[in-house]
């Protein structure tokens, strides 16, 4: 094993005076070490290329049982580093072939990375995802949409013959009304939380089939929140939950995370950037 070729698996970039003592184990429980170059340093593990070569990763990365423990290890190292002075995360499987190659990359990118440090220093990332549940929104539709309320009142007051037609109209228009109201509320939530954050990103609404039968994603937000405003931010999320949950929205609030969403060139990430180039 000692003669096997090694790759440098880099988790993230830290400041050159970062103390790696006490770091949790990395991928495959390989110890985490530090390599300094220029004005920055990399947190890394030396992994065998038999496990992390391009072909192996291509073959295995679609297998959730292979991927999950490594993803958790990647995040565990970054979360620890974030708690011990701050870190600029790299995507999983950022690998270098030698110490020399890594040192050269870090030196070349040093000034850019130092700027990224400044951007995220003293702040934590939170995720706020909001789904709407159509049935719950339908129950609250009179409050959400005055036009729908009017139509429903007319239907109830109408003669039996007319009522049927009006109820058909209510059913037809309800779907659109629910969609419009949910997106309006999602925008309100995003803007209100953005005002409390240093930076914020509304991610694409990737459908999440199978999560819950009638839940539709309406906001996939990431927020970079300064530590001194964390309580204020949490309280604001709580207020929004209390306000909008009765109107049919459900909230997933996660964090604090290392600033994954706020270190890319566009505030975005590796795969997306790679796909654009392709």
């Amino acid at each position: 094993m000692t003669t096997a070729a090694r790759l440098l698996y880099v988790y993230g970039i830290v400041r050159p005076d970062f103390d790696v003592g006490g770091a949790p184990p990395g991928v495959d429980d390989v110890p985490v070490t530090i390599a300094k170059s220029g004005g920055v340093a990399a947190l890394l593990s030396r992994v065998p290329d038999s496990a992390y070569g391009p072909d192996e990763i291509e073959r295995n990365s679609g297998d959730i049982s292979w991927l999950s423990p490594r993803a958790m290890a990647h995040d565990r190292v970054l979360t620890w580093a974030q708690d011990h002075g701050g870190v600029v995360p790299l995507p999983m499987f950022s690998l270098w072939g030698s110490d020399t190659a890594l040192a050269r990359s870090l030196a070349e990118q040093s000034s850019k990375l130092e700027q990224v440090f400044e951007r995220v220093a003293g702040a934590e990332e939170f995720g706020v995802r909001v789904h709407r549940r159509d049935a719950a929104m339908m129950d609250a539709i009179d409050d959400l949409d005055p036009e729908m309320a009017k139509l429903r009142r007319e239907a109830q007051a109408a003669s039996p013959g007319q009522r049927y037609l009006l109820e058909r109209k209510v059913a037809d228009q309800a779907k659109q009304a629910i969609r419009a109201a949910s997106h309006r509320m999602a925008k309100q939530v995003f803007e209100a939380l953005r005002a409390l954050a240093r930076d914020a990103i509304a991610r694409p609404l990737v459908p999440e089939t199978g999560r819950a039968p009638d839940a539709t994603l309406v906001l996939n937000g990431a927020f970079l929140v300064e530590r001194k405003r964390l309580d204020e931010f949490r309280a604001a999320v709580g207020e929004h939950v209390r306000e909008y949950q009765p109107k049919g929205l459900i909230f997933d609030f996660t964090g604090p995370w290392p600033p994954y969403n706020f270190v890319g060139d566009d505030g975005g990430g590796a795969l997306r950037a790679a796909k654009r180039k392709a």
Partner: protein
Amino acid sequence: MRRSRSPAIGEPDSLEEIYEPEQLVLSDLLNRVLDKGVVISSHITISIADVDLIQLDLRLLISSVETLAGRTKRGQLPVRSRSRP
């Protein structure tokens, strides 16, 4: 402490009927560690572009209850070691 929904938002019980918290956190985690982060050029190019994140989500869900329940028992899910700031 597990990274999860903040207790500040209240009424977690009603939400847990809808999502397994572990499933939610793992999905959030994968979408971050795979797709986000600063890209430093000139390292060995490992393409995982073939891994469509949407498919990944679906696979995650298909494998959800049984696999994740097993993982929870084995203590492999992310656990935060720090208290909230």
